[in-house]
């Protein structure tokens, strides 16, 4: 361990490890630290990853990190009378093993030249003249200080590092979903991601079954933060009321918070960048954050290395990361946020009516962000939704 680094990354999840790797490859001296004794565990995630991301991120996933290959998704209406399947080259993907996947990414970062230290908790973010300049941390009981030109906060849903640095990244109940998931065996699965919409089973969220093998699946539920009760109560009820899970055994419990609102208003400050779930860079519809975190982490790592080399790490210089990211991802996320805010106003009857005429082509259009044809179709059958749905036109 050294006293000075170009870049310190806190949090070795997908976003942090990706940032560390990119920064190290760009020639920066990098320290990647994580609170956990074993990177990758515990898992807090549904573990789904679309295969198109592999090309987009230049990512190689080792066979060991892949639990199951997925051909598409199937969505169920609240009354379970209708299901809509979507299977095309773009819906292919994987359910991965985050324990292996995350560790692989940290290994990549280490191979690229980053120093990686596990079981290291940051207890203070150091500042000089208002600019972030390093961290005070505790590594397995030994306290140390390390200075940096750029600190990348990639510490996930807790987002403690940004807040220690004075940026309010606290998750609000309205814009956050809370999820719990059991990994279960003796659950019959196809190679499809299953999504169940229902206000009673998962208010402002959904129930998911992500296959991890022929008879193993992540079964989870996410609910809106302002809804009644806690996520585990909904999941236990769903499993109890569903004959399919008779005889199913739970081999893991995973959970966490899922920011489904806007990303943070500011992703950079003097000497600081915020990346991934810590920056609320999460898809507002499905709540996935892994790929978005890696995408942001990659940009942040490269910009951080460049700014550190040029000795220009004030907010204005680091803004390059934010600007590239917002241009690339911002409009899509905002469109999806608008869709989330409309969907949360619909009740089960609305959903049942919508499902009656929904086709896989409609779903494809929704996924691609083209809401108009579907909305027009729904309005034809259910004109009373005009006021709610007009936000999407």
């Amino acid at each position, binding site marked *: 361990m050294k006293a000075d680094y170009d870049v310190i990354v806190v949090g070795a999840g997908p976003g942090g490890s990706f940032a560390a790797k990119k920064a190290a490859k760009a020639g920066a001296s990098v320290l990647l630290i994580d*609170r*956990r*004794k074993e990177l990758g565990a*515990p898992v*807090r995630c549904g573990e789904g990853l679309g295969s198109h991301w592999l090309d987009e991120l230049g990512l190689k996933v080792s066979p060991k990190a892949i639990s199951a290959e997925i051909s598409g998704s199937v969505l169920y209406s609240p009354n379970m009378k209708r299901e809509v399947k979507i299977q095309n080259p773009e819906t292919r993907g994987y359910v991965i093993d985050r324990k292996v996947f995350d560790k692989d990414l940290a290994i990549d970062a280490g191979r690229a030249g980053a120093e990686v230290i596990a*079981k290291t*908790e940051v207890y203070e973010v150091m500042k000089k003249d208002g600019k972030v300049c390093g961290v005070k941390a505790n590594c397995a009981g030994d306290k140390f200080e390390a200075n940096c030109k750029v600190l990348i906060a990639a510490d*996930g*849903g*807790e*987002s*403690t590092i940004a*807040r*220690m640095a004075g940026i309010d990244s*606290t*998750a*609000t*109940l309205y814009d*956050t979903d*809370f*999820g*719990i998931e059991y990994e279960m065996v003796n659950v019959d699965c196809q190679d499809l991601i299953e999504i169940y919409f229902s206000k009673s089973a998962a208010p402002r969220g959904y129930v998911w079954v992500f296959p991890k093998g022929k008879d193993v699946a992540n079964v989870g539920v996410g609910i809106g*933060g302002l809804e009644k009760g*806690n*996520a*585990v*109560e909904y999941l236990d009820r769903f499993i109890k009321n569903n004959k399919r899970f008779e005889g199913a055994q739970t081999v893991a*419990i*995973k*959970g*966490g*918070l899922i*920011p489904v609102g806007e990303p943070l208003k500011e992703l950079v400050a003097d000497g600081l960048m915020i990346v991934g779930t810590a920056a609320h860079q999460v898809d507002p519809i499905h709540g996935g954050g892994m790929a978005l975190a890696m995408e942001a982490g990659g940009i942040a790592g490269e910009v951080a290395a460049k700014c550190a080399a040029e000795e220009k790490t004030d907010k204005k210089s680091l803004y390059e990361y934010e600007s590239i990211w917002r241009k690339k991802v911002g409009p899509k996320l905002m469109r999806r946020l608008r869709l989330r805010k409309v969907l949360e106003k619909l009740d089960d009857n609305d959903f049942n009516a919508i499902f009656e005429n929904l086709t896989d082509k409609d779903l494809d259009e929704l996924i691609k962000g083209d809401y108009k044809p579907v909305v027009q179709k729904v309005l034809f059958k259910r004109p009373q939704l005009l006021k709610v749905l007009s936000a999407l036109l």
Partner: protein
Amino acid sequence: MFIIEELKGVSLIKIDRHRCIYCGACVGVCPKLALILKETFVEYDEKKCINCGMCAKACPMKAIDFKK
């Protein structure tokens, strides 16, 4: 008012360590950073707690008890 004065610095939350899966959801919503996730448990600073109850509402495992 007397009661509120008495409660200053006294947190009304109780975290059940046996139920907690240390996912950090409570930490993310705590407006006062009164909760910190250690590796396998959540530590909380009673002096910082303002008894808003957000953590109990957020906890997906229902591991936090909050009585006002």
